[in-house]
């Protein structure tokens, strides 16, 4: 996947990603219209299909609301890069099939508006401006199985079928 980067700081919490005042629905398109609203009020209008969110430390901290990765995915964001993810956001992203990668070196090198190419299989991020490639450790086998199945519910169905 290839896309333009939107940079955010450390500890972007799920209340900023999707404020609770919009949580009276589970409609992904409605949620996407407010994606990142309390971090960057105009984000949902600016973001284009395939764009990439770049966070700092502990991205997605706070509430367990799966509406957070869901609205990011529904807004057209193809991948989230960060130094680290808060654990429930991490689980939720894996479970719903939102591609994420922890890659501090790439995060440090990326500036707002830069274009990068992400290879999840290899766990690599290529900066298309400089051509530099940043490698990170791919996810453990157990998580790759969930991702390969297309998310946790598909994985559960596969396991249940065995």
């Amino acid at each position, binding site marked *: 996947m290839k896309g333009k980067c939107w940079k955010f700081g450390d500890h972007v919490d799920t209340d*900023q990603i999707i*404020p609770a005042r919009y949580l009276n629905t589970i409609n992904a398109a409605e949620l996407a219209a407010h994606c990142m609203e309390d971090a960057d009020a105009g984000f949902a209008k600016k973001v284009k299909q395939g764009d990439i969110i770049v966070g700092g430390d502990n991205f997605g901290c706070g509430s*367990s*609301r799966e509406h957070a990765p869901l609205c990011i995915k529904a807004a057209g964001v193809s991948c989230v890069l960060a130094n680290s993810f808060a654990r429930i956001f991490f689980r939720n992203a894996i479970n719903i099939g939102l591609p994420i990668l922890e890659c501090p070196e790439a995060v440090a090198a990326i500036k707002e508006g830069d274009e990068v190419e992400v290879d999840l299989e290899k766990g690599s991020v290529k900066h298309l401006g400089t051509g530099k490639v940043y490698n990170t450790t791919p996810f453990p086998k157990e998580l790759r199985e969930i991702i390969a199945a297309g998310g946790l*519910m598909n994985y559960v169905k596969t396991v249940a079928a065995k």
Partner: protein
Amino acid sequence: MGMTITEKIIAAHCGRERVKPGEFVYANVDIALGNDITAPLAIQEFEAAGLKRVFDPERIALIPDHFTPNKDIKSAQQCQVLRRFAHAHGLKHYYDAGRCGVEHAFLPEQGIVVPGDLVIGADSHTCTYGALGAFATGVGSTDLAAVMATGKVWLRVPSSLKFNYNGAMPKWIGGKDLVLLAIGKIGVDGARYQSMEICGEAIEFLNMDERLALCNMAIEAGAKNGIIAPDQTTVDYEENRAQRPFKKYASDPNAAYTKTYDFDVSNLEPLVALPHLPENVKPVRECKDIRIDQVVIGSCTNGRITDLRTAAQILDGRKVAPSVRLIVIPATQEIYLQAMREGLLEIFVNAEAVVSTPTCGPCLGGHMGILAEGERALSTTNRNFVGRMGHPKSEVYLCNPAVAAASAITGHITHPDEVL
């Protein structure tokens, strides 16, 4: 090498003698929890996957508490999804408005979660039940859907951090201050992916309400769970409460910890967490000129009877400052009734406070006390993120119930000693 209490509970729930930090396991779940925000999404996933049966109708708790009593039509629709699912699957633990309360106060109070349990909740403050000596952790809606179907959850066994609280607890200090002390020290991701094991002589003297408040905010340090080993206080709390037989686990003396933190609480002052992260912790006396528009006493952190008693003690015979709205929210129906019997509600109303029915309400900017642009709240809740309680340009300060009550009287952040 010995095992920690967290490792022992996880091992026991996947049929293993032992587990090691970093391992992936599929663990059996004793209770799975969802609320009116997270469960509708889980139910949608469950049904979209074509699943027909839940793994055990007695092991799933659906608690509509966030936007209830239904604040608008959309919230009402969400609650209806829960209600229909609960009835269709014959769920034992479904409780509608008037019969429940804030989930993390309600489930321990009713003995639905018990010591030694492995609890998965689609709510980040599920870590509260660690106070009972259970392994309890927050997950998302899809995790809940999978657990409802299979009774199992994927977990990476966390490594453990130990927090030792020594010394006698000073006046006006509660579990809230102890956890803010830790979060201030290690930061909002200081325990990320890890377990926070809470122990020490100060903990032995904490009642269960204070322990629940403490473990409630483990997530605010990024932790997977917070946990306190069961003792006599736990056993007494469970008497006439536990709905199932329970098991007491304890860490081995030679268990491994990533790090140990020692705190002496004997001279601790009440603490306040400033916007916009729970790690921005200062002693209350360094915040005393900060004026406030609203005070909230309630939530899954500090809406229990101990909290209401403390607040009432300070508010008794006094009035809330004219510039302040005070909102008091007993966390469950049982707490509400107890507060009524003890005359606490009368004290609050006489002090010119709003007393609300149990709800998460204002804590997450849902309803029952939303902030306008530029307004500032002091709250016994657990998060002070940007826009948490309303307008993105409002502010939330976090504190214990004593500081909240004292500050409601003066109109600015105040040490309880200055009022009482």
